[in-house]
């Protein structure tokens, strides 16, 4: 009862396991072997096969095999039991001929399904010279031997020597040895100046592989793998990599019996290894860069989306812009998107999901823009352009997303807020500045440098008008002079004429011609005044005479006396009573007045 129970459980686990687990069938052998060397070929299977048929191993001499070994393991985790099984078929082979040979896949049947192992390629290298440690074994020396450089060295290998700026290079730091390494000391990584470097994840434990280098088999180990992105063009040199290694070396001492008994003695020798500098030729990117190019190199794809296209004011919208592909993804800058100016925008949230692999940097980089529309309306976000340089096609590629249309409705809260006057007012938004437009209306052109000021005609106008002025003044002067001459003459003759008239009056007085007497007397007076004052007789009256006399003489008594004679004369002329006696008296008075006037008016 108990036994059957156990068997049942066993069977159950078995069935469970074989159904649940993927069958893995792998073949393993060193990739390089020496001629005549013995090596192991193993086929590993994680399930129990119903049949196993190995490939034909015609190119090798089979020393033994297949030797089957089985290992099983049980695991109980949280009460759950799991079992794993590993079945290994091992061959011991010896290489007989030089060349590269392929070991065909082995076939196994598990649960009526056929499985094949991976094919293997084994390189058989011709006769090796014996390792120097063995060669020099017998040389008597107390010192550890000098280690020849070709026995142990490090190299920095790059997959390409000539790349475009920004295109990735994979640099592999490898150690090559034919000696037994017991450990590593300090190491100095190159600083990769001129590059942006990213480590590719590799196992921390260095596993040695056999490799054929120029016909010599070395054990090689990858110390580090680095992705390099050149940041400048031109020739960039990767500095040497330095590594201190400890090697176990046999010390050759004078032989004694103990040596043979205890075996040879070894010591650890340290050696500083240094790789050779590597030159990388970096080509500059072609000059015809699109305006949207910001330095992305590789092969990429873009995708843009928004989470909603219809919102209410002050609701957030998220615009997601993703770049996917292979290239210098980490260095990609956020694209410039022309959001409507009425939107509040924030700096994009950047998320990266990037793996550094032997194929370069792959993954995606996402930019998330948060947009908050502040006003209702229909908005358009123009297509976003993204450019990158494709080193394989050696040309720039420009990708464009579609445009987005967003309808923003007024939210209820917003309407309430808007009721309060003056609160939602905002300053005029200046979207950009530009020069004012040209003056398109017809305008007047004028000949350059042709200005009136300083020209000959300009000065002529001054001179001519001045000349004209002078001429007018001169003419006037001459005219005045002429007239003054006449007046002067009249003036001089005035008393003479007046005396003549007085004489005539005197004659009339004698002949008692009363009428004629007064007439000549008046004529003498008026004529005298006219000549003296240069006033025509027609314009002469008592008033004007008095006024004008005032300007010439200050003696008021004389003026009054002179004018009184004229008055008396005019009165007597028309009065019938005037006798000769009165006339006599008037005559003497008139003579006296004129004489006196003549004295004053000179």
């Amino acid at each position, binding site marked *: 009862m108990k036994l059957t129970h156990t068997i049942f459980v066993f069977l159950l686990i078995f069935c469970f396991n074989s159904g649940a687990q993927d069958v893995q069938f792998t073949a393993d052998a060193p990739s390089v072997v020496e001629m005549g060397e013995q090596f192991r070929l193993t086929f590993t299977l994680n399930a129990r096969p119903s049949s196993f048929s190995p490939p034909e191993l015609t190119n090798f001499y089979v020393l033994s095999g297949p030797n089957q070994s089985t290992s099983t393991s049980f695991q109980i985790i949280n009460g759950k039991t799991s079992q794993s099984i590993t079945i290994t078929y091992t061959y011991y082979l010896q290489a007989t001929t030089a060349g590269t040979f392929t070991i065909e896949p082995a076939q196994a049947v598990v649960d009526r399904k056929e499985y094949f192992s991976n094919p293997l390629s084994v390189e058989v290298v011709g006769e090796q010279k014996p390792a120097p440690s063995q060669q020099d074994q017998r040389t008597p020396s107390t010192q550890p031997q000098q280690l020849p450089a070709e026995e142990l060295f490090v190299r920095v290998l790059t997959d390409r020597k000539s790349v475009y700026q920004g295109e990735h290079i994979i640099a592999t730091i490898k150690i090559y040895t034919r000696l037994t390494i017991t450990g590593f000391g300090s190491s100095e990584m190159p600083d990769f100046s001129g590059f942006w470097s990213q480590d590719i994840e590799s196992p921390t434990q260095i596993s040695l592989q056999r490799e054929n280098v120029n016909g010599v088999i070395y054990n090689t180990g990858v110390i580090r793998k680095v992705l390099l992105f050149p940041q400048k063009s031109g020739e960039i040199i990767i500095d040497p990599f330095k590594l201190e290694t400890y090697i176990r070396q046999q010390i050759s001492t004078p032989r004694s019996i103990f040596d043979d008994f205890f075996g040879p003695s070894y010591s650890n020798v340290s050696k500083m290894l240094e790789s050779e500098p590597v030159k990388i030729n970096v080509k500059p990117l072609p000059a015809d860069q699109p305006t949207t190019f910001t330095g992305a190199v590789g092969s990429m794809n873009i995708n843009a989306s928004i989470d909603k296209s219809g919102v209410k004011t002050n609701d957030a919208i998220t615009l997601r812009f993703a770049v996917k592909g292979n290239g210098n993804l980490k260095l990609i800058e956020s694209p410039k998107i022309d959001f409507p100016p009425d939107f509040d925008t924030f700096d994009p949230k950047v998320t990266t999901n990037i793996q550094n692999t032997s194929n370069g940097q792959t993954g995606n980089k996402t930019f998330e823009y948060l947009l908050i529309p502040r006003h209702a309306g229909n908005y358009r976000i123009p297509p976003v352009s993204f450019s990158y340089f494709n080193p394989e096609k050696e040309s720039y590629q420009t990708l464009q997303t579609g445009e987005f249309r967003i309808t923003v409705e007024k939210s209820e809260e917003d309407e309430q807020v808007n009721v309060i006057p003056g609160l939602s007012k905002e300053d005029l938004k200046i979207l950009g500045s*530009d020069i*004012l437009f040209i003056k398109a209306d017809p305008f007047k052109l004028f*000949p350059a440098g042709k200005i009136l000021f300083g020209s000959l005609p*300009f000065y002529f106008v001054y001179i001519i008008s001045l000349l004209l002025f002078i001429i007018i003044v001169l003419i*006037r002067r001459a005219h005045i002079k002429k007239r003054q001459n006449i007046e002067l003459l009249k003036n001089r003759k005035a008393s003479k004429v007046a005396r003549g008239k007085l004489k005539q009056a005197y004659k009339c007085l004698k002949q008692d011609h009363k009428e004629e007497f007064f007439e000549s007397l008046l004529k003498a007076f008026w004529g005298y005044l006219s000549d003296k004052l240069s006033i025509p007789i027609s314009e002469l009256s008592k008033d004007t005479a008095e006024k004008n006399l005032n300007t010439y003489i200050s003696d008021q008594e004389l003026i009054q006396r002179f004018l009184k004679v004229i008055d008396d004369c005019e009165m007597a002329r028309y009065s019938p009573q005037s006798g000769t006696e009165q006339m006599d008296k008037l005559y003497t008075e008139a003579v006296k007045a004129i004489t006196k006037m003549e004295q004053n008016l000179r």
Partner: protein
Amino acid sequence: MKQLAGLILIILLIAQSAFTQDIYDLVKEGNEYYINGEFESAIDKYEAVLDSGYVSPELYYNLGNAYFKSHKLTMALVQYERALLLDPNDEEIINNLALARQYVVDEIDALPELLIKKWYRTFITIFTIDQWAYISISTFIFALVLFLIYLFTRTINLRRFSFWLAFVFLFLAFSTYVFSYHRKKNIYDHNFAIILSPSVTIKGSPDNSGTDLFQLHEGTKVKIIDQMGEWKEIRLSDGNVGWLRDENLIKI
């Protein structure tokens, strides 16, 4: 003979008007090119008008705009400055010049100008050179007429009045003449220039071995104060003085 002379005169007048008509057509074509965004062609048309010897502030302004739009900042600045010299109070010219100056690298703190000098400078821009000249001539003639009135009348009040007024007008004629003279000097003999080279080192003496004084960049306005061979001595608006080769400059 008289008829022949008349005929020649008429032909000349027609030729003259046809010529100016061509020039106005050029301006129109330039404007159309500008509106269509073909700034290089617009520049060619405007320059052709200038080559034929005709100018106007508007033309310089449009040419400056075309240069600005085709990203030739220095030439744009030169044209705007020329436009502003001819019409210093035009808002559009002032605006675009200020905008273009924002792209100039060098920031120079101008020495403060005397307030009276500044006022005077603005005051004389009220009229153009020839307007001032006309005012000067007419006030001069008026002053002469007033002198004549003074000489010819006997009425003492009128004589006194005309005498003083004549002096006032004579003074006006003289001062407007001076305004016209200064305005002309400001436009035609100003000695201002603009740096043409993207970057030029100003030397302490007119020689390549001279001490490097400072660095200037294209678009900066300087005043030429002296010259020696191919070298020009310049003064900045902050008072700094130095020498540079004249191929680095373009006169406004």
